């Protein structure tokens, strides 16, 4: 999720507010597939569940990738030469539109998935090391996330298209002069980012078993915080940032001794965001850029 942000921001220097909503729609797609296509009730069999998961992943990633690219083509591309704030404001507008698309599609109540092996706390134990219990619900998250991360790093670092993306990020005009099709590269970036958001949405839907139209916005901001924390435009940084934010969130909510509790989660995450932006705008792993501060 944070990766998608970093990717788009790094290339385009645009904060895509709509990213969280694309993520949310990805989750909704997977909910639809599980409940309606596979018609699963409570506690479905593992085999069918894996099939449903794979199908959802494919459909949601494709759908979200296309959606994200379409958003870019319709809403952001015409504004690429406008003053900086214009695309940012448009992004907020798009984000609200997508939320309401979800409302039209699913109504205002959250959509529920059946509790399963993959939902939080519901997985069977795979192995134990001392007190640490490893369950299916955690494993499946890792099983999807790690290949996606590896694939992404490979894509950006070792392919022609990835090279074009990095070149566009550094200097759009120079990249265009070197014969890179900037428009296509940007669209491609949005495709990849959309696919990532879709995958994230599927994982979230299976894990949390409930997803509503407003889920995406807050999570989107958390992801943005993660991206900023790790250093924006920096892929390993985004993963590190996401880990840290997750840890902070769990410490805040889970620790029994002095912890402010879940009521304050948002405040704490945003306070971190503000502090990072004010004191170390390049993030933990980022490089200092002239305009960064």
């Amino acid at each position, binding site marked *: 999720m944070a990766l998608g942000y970093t990717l788009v921001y790094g290339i385009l220097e645009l904060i895509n507010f709509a990213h969280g909503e694309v993520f949310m729609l990805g989750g909704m797609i997977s909910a639809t597939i599980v409940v309606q296509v596979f018609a699963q009730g409570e506690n479905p069999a593992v085999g069918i569940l894996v099939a449903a998961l794979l199908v959802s992943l494919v459909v949601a990633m494709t759908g979200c990738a296309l959606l994200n690219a379409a958003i870019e083509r319709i809403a952001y591309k015409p504004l690429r030469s406008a003053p900086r704030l214009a695309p940012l404001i448009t992004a*907020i507008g798009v984000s*609200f539109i997508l939320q309401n698309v979800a409302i*039209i599609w699913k109504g205002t109540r959250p959509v529920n998935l059946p509790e399963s092996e993959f939902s939080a706390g519901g997985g069977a134990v795979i192995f134990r090391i001392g007190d640490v219990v490893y369950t299916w619900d955690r494993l499946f998250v890792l099983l999807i996330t790690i290949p996606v991360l590896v694939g992404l790093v490979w894509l950006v670092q070792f392919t022609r298209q990835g090279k074009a993306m990095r070149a566009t990020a550094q200097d759009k005009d120079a990249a265009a002069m070197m014969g890179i099709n900037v428009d296509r590269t940007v669209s491609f970036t949005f495709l990849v980012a959309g696919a990532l958001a879709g995958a994230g949405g599927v994982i979230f839907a299976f894990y949390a078993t409930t997803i509503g139209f407003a889920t995406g916005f807050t999570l989107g901001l958390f992801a943005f915080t993660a991206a900023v924390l790790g250093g924006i435009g920096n892929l390993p940084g985004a993963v590190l940032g996401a880990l840290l934010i997750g840890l902070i969130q769990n410490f805040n909510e889970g620790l029994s001794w002095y912890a402010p509790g879940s009521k*304050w989660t948002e405040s704490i995450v945003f306070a971190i965001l503000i502090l990072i932006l004010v004191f170390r*705008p390049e993030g933990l792993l980022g490089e200092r850029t002239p305009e960064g501060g």
Partner: protein
Amino acid sequence: MADPIAPRTSPDVEEAPASALWHRHPVLMRRAVPAVLITALLIALAGAGVLRQSGEVYLIVVVVLLLLLARAAFANFWRGLDRIGVEDAHSRWQAQSPLVQRAVPPVVIAAVVILIAWAAGTRPDLSLLVLLAITYGLYLMPPASRRIALPVTVLLLVVVYPFLIQQTDYQRFLFKLPIFGVFPSMDTMVSILIFAMMAIGLNMVVGYAGLLDLGYVAFYAIGAYTAAWLASPHFAAYGVSMDFGSVAEKGILDVGGIHLSIWLVLLVAGVLTAAVGVIIGLPTLRLRGDYLAIVTLGFGEILPQVSRNGDKDGLGFNLTNGPPGINPVDPPGFGNWLSGNLGLPSSYLREQGVYVNFLSLMFWTALGLLLITVFCSVRLRDSRLGRAWIAIREDETAAAAMGIPLMRTKTWAYASGAFFGGVAGAWFATIKTGVFPDDFFFNISVLILCMVILGGMGNVWGVVAGAAVLEYLNLEGIANFNGWMNDHVLVCDPTKQDPSAVISGGCLNAPLVTFGIYGAIIVLVMLTRPQGLFPEQRRKLEFETGVHDTPIQDVTA
């Protein structure tokens, strides 16, 4: 504002043949034909039942016709004066000292406003006609007055609005709008005024200085809570008791807590909010535009959460009383002395008249506050500071090179924007006689931003118009439109309707997607008309020609 009669009075040399033909007709006919057409249209609409059948509508039509004819006779007010024997009236007016020339129009306008308000109070059914007459009178005046004709008319209409809307049978005097139905209620009108104030405040930050603020609702919340702290029994639990010019009922004063006069509260709320704006601004305004937007968004999320959690459990000190909010907040009023000597209402809550009551007094006061805000905003824009803001918006680097202190100027923009947000918030708390944390969500920030964008960033009047349209849609318009759709277009069965679905049982539930509609408005405006509906001239040029701050070669690298 475009000069409405210039194209018709100034003969254009390179006109198309058709319009040349038209201009060959005598002036009387050229004036009369449109009048007859408009009249025919109105009568047709009335006949079709769109305008509710009422004698007053026809009366209005007749007056419009008469006025058009009168204007045909006196194509120009001053020439008309010449014709009836007053020689050189115009040049004699211009020979007056500048002081007289500047002072007379406001005095005349003020007198007319009072006259109309009085007339509206005694004969509400006639006030619309008087208004029409005044508008027309202003159009007959020399260009300078013609320019103010529209704002003055709108202002007068707003001033007399409570008289028109609060009659028990007001639909005899006001027709029903097609599709949207009845005219907005007093509650809606007060909200519109408050949101217009906030939109102007945000416009100073976004429109003038070009700093995107996505957390404006925080300032609004601070203003509201300040009012709640300084004018309610809230702190009575901590043994604080203080009364300074408050007009609250004796029973409430006896409970304790801080009770300041509301006028003082407004000022304190503004200043406190501006101070918070400075505190937030000082560390964050160094950031570049989009980072700044995110940081303000963060503040806009943190402060409402603080207000939701700021009770004994969350904070250890009951600051905001948590989810139930603080209730009641004291009503505004002028106290017994001013009431006895000047006839001003001593406490708004005690006024129970048909026309003069809590809501209409709130409305007029909010209108006054809005006018002060507009005035300050326009004066600030034209001041040295305002020009510095615009310079920063257009090119930060160039502005800095010209010797504008970036941080100080930006912080001032933040502080002044926050000030008016705070005042609006405080007034909002007084009208709701309470503060409730659910009123301060990120949605509100976007709503205000949407008003600024739709109206045209930087243009005060456009922003007010944007606020009026969007807040009306928000509170009544979309719901009314929805009702009309369900009654006339769709086959709706309310018994089968699911309240959480947009389309169910053949019914549409459009209010659910209100913010989607705003999102669509934002995107459409940014894509097709980024300067807004009523652009500020300078801003328009900026969007059309670009800002040229992206050189082909990056000199900083």
